[in-house]
């Protein structure tokens, strides 16, 4: 038996390949994916940044409009709360209602599309066999892609913040850098949560359409639950089931780090499930 073992060890030794440390392959994969996402991330950041900057630029025109305040006060309280319309007289309140209340509905599609493309998309494009022909554990494809998407999303929100704050400085709108930073950073966990949902379905199925559609439905479903929960007392108990419940209004109240950490933890759990699911299934091309 020991003779057999020695022979096998010799055999393996003769064919030993230079192996890169796991952290090295993970880093290489993540950086490559960031590079592939770079152009898309810049476009997302510039488009959302320009929209946000436009909202900042319009604030001076509505500042002090008493008719607008009166109009808002005439709305039912639940409706004002649902759409964050209670404090339009300050830059923070105005941007919260016009930008940051709705931004996750658009921005979440960046991590959704990126995560759906990482596995199911690579299978559909037929690129996954050549990539996994390298000594790359499957978990690294999931985790590396997710890290890259998380970094790209940080870049997008940073651009959004710079456009907003830069416009505020230029037009002398009273909006501090720290407030703007809190507002854009607060977008990160909620959007990554939907990226996590997409990664899970990308890992379970090999169809990109499922990995986009299902998180998309979850996104709008959760938004609806949160809005209706604010409007209707009967539905209020459902709100904690929606990730939007934990989103808050960071531009006015600062980041709730408990919620920030909680949502991030749930997202990491989704990624863990994705790793487990992807490790156990066939790869399709």
């Amino acid at each position, binding site marked *: 038996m020991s003779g057999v073992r020695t*022979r*096998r060890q010799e*055999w*393996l030794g*003769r*064919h*030993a*390949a*230079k*192996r*890169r440390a796991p952290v*090295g*392959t993970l880093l*290489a*994969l993540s950086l*490559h994916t960031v590079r*592939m996402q770079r152009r898309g991330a810049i476009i997302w950041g510039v488009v959302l940044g320009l929209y946000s900057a436009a909202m900042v630029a319009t604030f001076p025109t509505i500042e002090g409009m008493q008719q607008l305040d009166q109009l808002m006060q005439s709305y039912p309280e639940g409706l004002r709360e649902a759409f964050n319309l209670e404090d339009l007289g300050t830059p923070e309140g105005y941007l919260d209602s016009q930008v940051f209340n709705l931004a996750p509905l658009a921005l979440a599609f960046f991590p959704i599309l990126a995560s759906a493309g990482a596995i199911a998309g690579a299978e559909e*494009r*037929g*690129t996954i*066999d*050549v990539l*996994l*022909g*390298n*000594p*790359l*554990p499957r978990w690294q494809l999931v985790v590396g892609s997710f890290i890259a998407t998380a970094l790209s999303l940080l870049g997008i929100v940073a651009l959004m913040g710079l456009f907003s704050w830069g416009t505020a400085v230029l037009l002398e709108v009273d909006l501090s850098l720290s407030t703007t930073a809190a507002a854009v950073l607060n977008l990160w966990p909620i959007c990554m949560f939907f990226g996590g949902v997409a990664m899970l379905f990308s890992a379970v199925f090999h169809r990109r359409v499922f990995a986009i559609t299902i998180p998309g439905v979850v996104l709008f479903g959760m938004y609806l639950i949160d809005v209706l929960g604010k409007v209707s007392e009967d539905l209020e108990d459902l709100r904690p089931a929606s990730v939007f419940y934990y989103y808050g209004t960071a531009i006015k109240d600062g980041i709730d780090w408990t919620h920030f950490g909680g949502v991030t933890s749930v997202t990491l759990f989704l990624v863990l499930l994705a790793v487990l699911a992807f490790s*156990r*299934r*066939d*790869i399709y*091309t």
Partner: protein
Amino acid sequence: MCATIETEKLTKTYGKNRGIRGVDLTVDEGEVFGFLGPNGAGKTTTIRALLGFLRPSDGRAWVFGMDIRKKSVEIRERVGNLPGEFALEDRMTGEEFLRYFGRLRGVGDLDHAWELAERLEADLHRPMRRLSRGNKQKIGLIQAMFHKPPLLVLDEPTGGLDPLVQEEFLEIVDEVKAEGRTVFLSSHVLSEVERVCDRVGIIRDGELVEVEPTDQLTNKAFRHVSLTFDRPVDPKPFAALPGVQGLSAEGTRLSFTLYDNLDEMIKLAARSRLVNMEYERPSLEEVFLTFYGEGENGGER
């Protein structure tokens, strides 16, 4: 000598009909093994199972003595793989792609990649979307070989390559073999298999039906015989010989395919004055089509 690849009743089924069943295969160190079969026979399924992309339904397999279910990453460290449907990210150039794979494999010195690119006349500077199928295939071959793996697994390696580049590739395979490395080559281009492979495995409808040294496979088969006499001879005794098929008589010449009874055929021919005899081995393609050419069901598995 140890087996580089060994499978034992390897089975992979998808639904009811497709897949591979009970494949027992051994590929020895340092040999060039040709894996032949029509489209849909199970070549790609076998390769993808060996590399850990598909989970076998039954049976076992080892590459370098390592279980494919447990040591997939370690196996892929030692393997250079060209997938059958080779596709890359459209925006990347060949050079970017090779540098990226070099980083994934911890290979800093890409001199061998540049050397292969020169030999295969690969364009490394244009994005993939602007390359023809043949030029993409060259990049695929380079990425499989640039890190000098002890085992090359190449699924339809010459698809889209022009004849000169095909010949250069086959020379590279010869060099790889001379270095003692192993090549597992799936193809339905029989001429290239015949040119470089030591042994051939033939898979049909998901089952391995034959494993033979390439020359034995062609030797054991039929021969094309052409006999020229000094005057026309009666073809009937030749046609009546067991093992003679497809006989045609044209003037002083008789042509037929001989499956058996060489001795009797020679003795019969010797009764007349023979002025020329051609006795040709069939190509591997003919052998394949004759013995294994039926039952294709289309669509690669």
